[in-house]
């Protein structure tokens, strides 16, 4: 299990730190697939069949629907990230520190204070913290959406590890909320891209008419 958690964190690092937005979104696919695997294993090991439903829902929403929706945002825009507020090398270094040391400390905290929670707790809390770091350090709209996605995945893991027997309709409703929020974000992002393209065309027209 430990390796799967590390893989999840590694792919979230790739999603957060690669400059190419296409690659960032693609990194979310294995990230989400590993989440699905973890949820399925937790359901099997702890004998909670209702988690299978959540695993299927995660597969549809997090591994398939979300990347598709995020890919839509690439329409009418450059596929490289807008310059973040923290320089790229520093951000990579900070991410590595946050993910590795953060995970290690959360794991220590878990085993000393809350040993009864399911093992995905440390990964969930680290994802939440890392997503929040990305959220405040990135300025690109799509990267902010990716960080929101990572934070949400962290919360999802925390729910599963702390209250695995929570009524599943609540978890389904929380996922539904998340999907609706992403749909609205994609709508806004697409409209903004259209406006930027229109502005660029107008600028080009102006400069060409000045030259002629």
């Amino acid at each position, binding site marked *: 299990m430990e390796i799967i958690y590390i893989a999840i964190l590694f792919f979230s690092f790739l999603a957060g730190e690669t400059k190419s937005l296409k690659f960032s979104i693609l990194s979310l696919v294995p990230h989400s697939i590993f989440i699905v695997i973890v949820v399925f294993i937790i359901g099997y090991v702890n004998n909670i069949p209702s988690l299978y439903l959540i695993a299927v829902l995660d597969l549809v929403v997090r591994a398939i629907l979300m990347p598709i929706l995020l890919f839509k945002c690439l329409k009418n825009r450059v596929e490289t990230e807008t310059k973040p507020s923290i320089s790229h090398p520093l951000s990579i270094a900070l991410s590595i520190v946050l993910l590795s040391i953060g995970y290690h400390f959360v794991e220590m905290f878990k085993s000393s204070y809350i040993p009864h929670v399911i093992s995905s707790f440390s990964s969930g809390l680290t994802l939440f913290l890392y997503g929040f770091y990305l959220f405040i350090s990135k300025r690109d709209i799509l990267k902010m959406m990716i960080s929101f996605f990572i934070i949400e995945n962290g919360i999802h893991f925390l729910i599963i590890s702390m209250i695995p027997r*929570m009524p599943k309709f*609540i978890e389904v409703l929380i996922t539904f909320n998340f999907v609706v929020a992403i749909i609205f974000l994609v709508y806004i992002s697409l409209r903004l891209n259209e406006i930027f393209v229109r502005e660029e065309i107008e600028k080009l027209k102006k400069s060409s008419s000045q030259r002629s």
Partner: protein
Amino acid sequence: MSIELVPYLFSFIAPFIASLIVFLLGKKRFIKESVSVLSIFLAILSTILCWSALSISDKTYLTFGKVFYIDGFSILMQLMVEFVALMVILYSFFYIPKVYNHRKDNFHNYYSAILLSTAFMNLSFIFNNLFLLYIALELSTIVAVYVIVFNLNKDSLRAGFKYIILINVGILFSLLGIILLFYMAGEPVMISNIGEVIKALPRNIALLSAFLFIVGFFTKAGLVPFHLWLPDSYSESPSSVTVFLAGGVTKLGFYGLVRTITGFSFNYEEIKILVIFLASLSMLIGAIVAFNQRDIKKVIAYVSISEMGFIASALVLKTYEGIFGGVFHLINHTLIKGALFFVAGAIVYSCESRNIENIKKAIGKMPTVITTSFFIGSLAVGGMPLFASFLSSITIFFALTEEGFLWASIVLIVSEFINAVVLLKTAIEIFWNKEKNEVSTISIPFLMLICTVFFVILLILFGIYPEIIYPLIDSATKGIIRILS
């Protein structure tokens, strides 16, 4: 739950069904307008039914199974949101077609989004389970973004993006708090038992959960330092929507605050001090930043942040007077902001600009009703006698002082004074120092004037005859204290 209870739940069923009807069949003006108004009237009727059922019963709350929990505070919040939604819809009949004519094919979606958001808000006020409250609260937030970006220009889209992403991320912190409470309690945490759950928590966990709730609900309410979404969303959205945001959407943050953080502040002095400190920051920063603004709606937005600080500081006090003052100011804030933003809407309607310099150049002779409403709103922000805000401010002032927060009371008085000065200065600049001297009065649709005046009349009425509203505030205050103490 039996079928007899359905009329009580019409507060969210009616706007929900109406939003579907308007979305599907609302292209015709008559349908969208009549259905919207009718559904809000039905929702108000349902809430009044609940209020009368609560009044005649011996209990201070009603429960429908384990799902719904209705007390005086739920009813007060529902009535406030329904009243605001009604005013917003009526105001929009003339305002939206003129100012946003380029979106005429989507007017029905605008009404549908307002109704849907109202339905989710009303639902969150009566849910007992904290998870369900969170879900309804978040859905109402998300749906409201459609009306914020209704103009579909670059600035409104940016404001909308900021609004949805910041609030969604912020509110996830409160979800984390709910998860922590659930984990510690070992059972779903309900509004009806949250007081007991908080009391049983170990100190460290309680402080951590309170901190998570503060981040979440302060973001939702738009309080400093989590207010970044608020000025842009208020200024870029249509003025009618701004009233909806100020009177409804941000109030959900206060609802969450009262149901959770107030409970922690009853048991932990540190939480009370932290909230009052942040609230005082809101009061001061809002008032000071409002001074530099040249956008009329941003001026009112920052004043609004400042005023919301008064409410937050009062709602964490352990005394009846403190909570009473906070709830009373919650109503007054809605009325004041309703009047001021509707006046701003009338100015935008006639001048087609929000910039004070442009308004000075373009504004003609405004109807006396509009200028008077702005002045009354400004004086009410300053907590002048004769207005309801005087009573609520003075109650908060004494409650804060009695609990040993004299410094916060002084900050309150100073920021009230600054707020009033900022708004009066803006009013004088716009209505007296205007550069255009037209003899003819600008024509503002009657319905827009009526909506504006209605807020002002209530502000004066509750100031002169507060006993009209006291029973409702008293019931709300007792409801809050009953759960948490």
